[in-house]
């Protein structure tokens, strides 16, 4: 090292040290304590799934106290939550909120308008949004999105979310994306990012998220698509319209593929449009309380055939809904086994600005089945398939329509 560089480094050292010294771990220590105490007091299983919770604190708290950066401190909290080895435990970083706050700039969840699913071939495009820059550039279902970085070591679900994250960015920005088209050729396209369709919806301490609920007629079925279980008033309006549309149809299809969940009670709320007598979709077992997901039948429910479309990204409340109606024999399920992330949870805000999500209950179906880790299996397995997608087909929807067509 020459003298000039040494002098530069020594001059910079105070500034470097100042940057490290300026990080105050105390908010993260307070956050750690809140997270640790909350799980100890509110996790539905008083035995904390066999975890040595005191030892966990003894081991991890000093690491937060000694953390030199927010990232390091946050990593320790995430490590503690990962030890629960269950869904619905996690941190939502402050950036996730600011990225979705229109007051703070362009939305951060914009994308070129493609949906992907992890299939044996990779991140296969299942849908291209009409009017999107991807559609204009000739992107088609069946193409494979080739994200940067090696995602092969990740589980399919983590690979999916990593691929989606690489598709997203600020609305209005333009980026290059690499694909393999349906002829096997490599394509590098510069695409503009636009916000996803749907109404930006807020609920509690969740970051705002786009919500799309709608019904349409497709062949001999009335189809309801629910992207997430929020906005009860919107959902009920669409259900009322669906039931009206179904009067001239042979059946109803409810598409909850890709639905990550939402308000637990909406599973029962939606079910109420399809049953004639009161029912129970399952029980939420909390510490000190057990709530049945009670289904109150609507005054004029639809009583014809009901098909539900599910896939590995159908999670949480979507699983309560699909699994619950399957259990009581009211619906036939098509597609793929759901994600098995079926724990009711709440989200609090920590002193650090992070959202802290934790499960407060275990869901048991009416037949006593625990869906966490297992998921809901369909009556008819109908995965998407690259060849079918490239041909513009939707196997799960096709199977559901065929079943409805044959039902009396």
């Amino acid at each position, binding site marked *: 090292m020459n003298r000039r560089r040494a002098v530069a480094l020594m001059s910079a050292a105070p500034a470097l040290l100042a940057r490290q010294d300026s990080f105050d771990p105390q908010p993260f220590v307070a956050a750690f304590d809140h997270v640790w105490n909350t799980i100890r*007091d*509110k996790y*539905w299983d008083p035995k904390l799934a066999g975890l040595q919770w005191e030892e966990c604190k003894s081991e991890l708290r000093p690491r937060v106290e000694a953390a030199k950066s927010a990232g390091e401190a946050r990593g320790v909290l995430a490590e503690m939550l990962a030890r629960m080895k269950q869904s619905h435990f996690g941190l939502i970083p402050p950036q996730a909120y600011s990225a979705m706050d229109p007051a703070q700039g362009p939305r951060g969840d914009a994308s070129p308008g493609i949906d992907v699913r992890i299939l044996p071939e990779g991140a296969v495009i299942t849908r291209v949004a009409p009017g999107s820059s991807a559609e204009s550039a000739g992107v088609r279902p069946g193409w494979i999105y080739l994200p940067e970085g090696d995602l092969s070591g990740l589980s399919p679900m983590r690979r999916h979310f990593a691929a989606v994250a690489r598709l997203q960015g600020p609305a209005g920005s333009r980026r290059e994306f690499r694909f393999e088209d349906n002829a096997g050729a490599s394509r590098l396209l510069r695409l503009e990012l636009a916000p996803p369709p749907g109404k930006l*919806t*807020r*609920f*509690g*301490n969740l970051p705002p998220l786009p919500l799309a609920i709608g019904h349409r007629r497709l062949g001999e079925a009335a189809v309801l698509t629910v992207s997430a279980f*929020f*906005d*009860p*008033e919107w*959902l*009920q309006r669409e259900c009322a319209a669906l039931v009206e549309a179904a009067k001239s149809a042979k059946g109803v299809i409810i598409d909850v593929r890709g639905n990550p969940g939402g*308000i637990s*009670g*909406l599973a*029962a*709320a939606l079910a*109420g449009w399809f049953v004639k007598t*009161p029912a129970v979709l399952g*029980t939420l077992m*909390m*510490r*000190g*309380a*057990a*709530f*049945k*997901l*009670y289904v*109150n039948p*609507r*005054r004029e429910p639809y009583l014809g055939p009901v098909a539900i479309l599910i896939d590995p990204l159908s999670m949480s409340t979507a699983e309560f809904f699909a699994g619950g109606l399957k259990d009581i024999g009211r619906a036939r399920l098509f597609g793929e086994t759901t994600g098995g992330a079926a724990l009711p949870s*709440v*989200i*609090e*805000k920590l002193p650090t600005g992070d959202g802290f999500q934790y499960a*407060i*209950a275990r869901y048991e179906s009416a037949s006593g089945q625990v869906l966490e880790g297992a998921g809901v299996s369909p009556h008819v397995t109908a995965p998407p398939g690259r060849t079918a997608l490239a041909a513009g087909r939707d196997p799960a929807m096709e199977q559901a329509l065929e079943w409805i067509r044959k039902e009396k």
Partner: protein
Amino acid sequence: MRKFTSAAFLVVAGVTAATAQNLPSGETVLDRYIEVTGGKAAHAQLKNVSITGKLEFTGQGLTGTLSTWSAAPAMNKTVMELAGIGKIESGSANGRAWQISAMQGPRLLEGEELKQNLHMTRFNAALNWRDSFSTVNNEAEEAVNGKACYRLVMTPKNGAAPETAWYEKESGLLVRSRATIKSPMGEIAMDTELGDFREVSGIKFPFAITQKVGPQAIKTTVEEIKANADLPAGHFDPPAEIQKLMK
């Protein structure tokens, strides 16, 4: 040793017996509550009560508003509006009770749920406790939030489940209650804590109410209470969707 032990036991027993004998009766505690919150005359002049306030699901970022009206002889209506959930309405009159929300749609309460609802929404419950309870037992003195209280167990006359209530020994105020709420969702234990008592029209009402069910808590901050307001005719009539169910 035996003599000392016997004497010590007697002393302990004597103290215990004296404590049990010093507990006021449940009736005394409830009558005192009427007095410390304004007195019989003040309570008797109530014809209706209107309450507005704010709701918060503690720690979850879920907030909303609450408006509730109750009137003699036994009418009640409550409207809650929660961000992201919408409006939840409920009411009772003429021996019938109902609920309506975007989540559940319209529903008439029946059976045990109806019985309990009518008991819990009775008007001027404090003044008229003798009409509602067949037995009221002061079971023990115990602390609530560091203050000595009397724990009463009260059995409703209409067969609804017994409820427990804690009245502060010093102030005589009701500070906590516990009831098992029966509904189609199951039997759910709910604890309610009351505080920030303020006088309105000569009667003390709680302006801070926290209800706890399992790991969740709902905090109500009362903003305004009106006694004997001019309520419009038909104010307690159920919504049209409920009336269709009633026919």
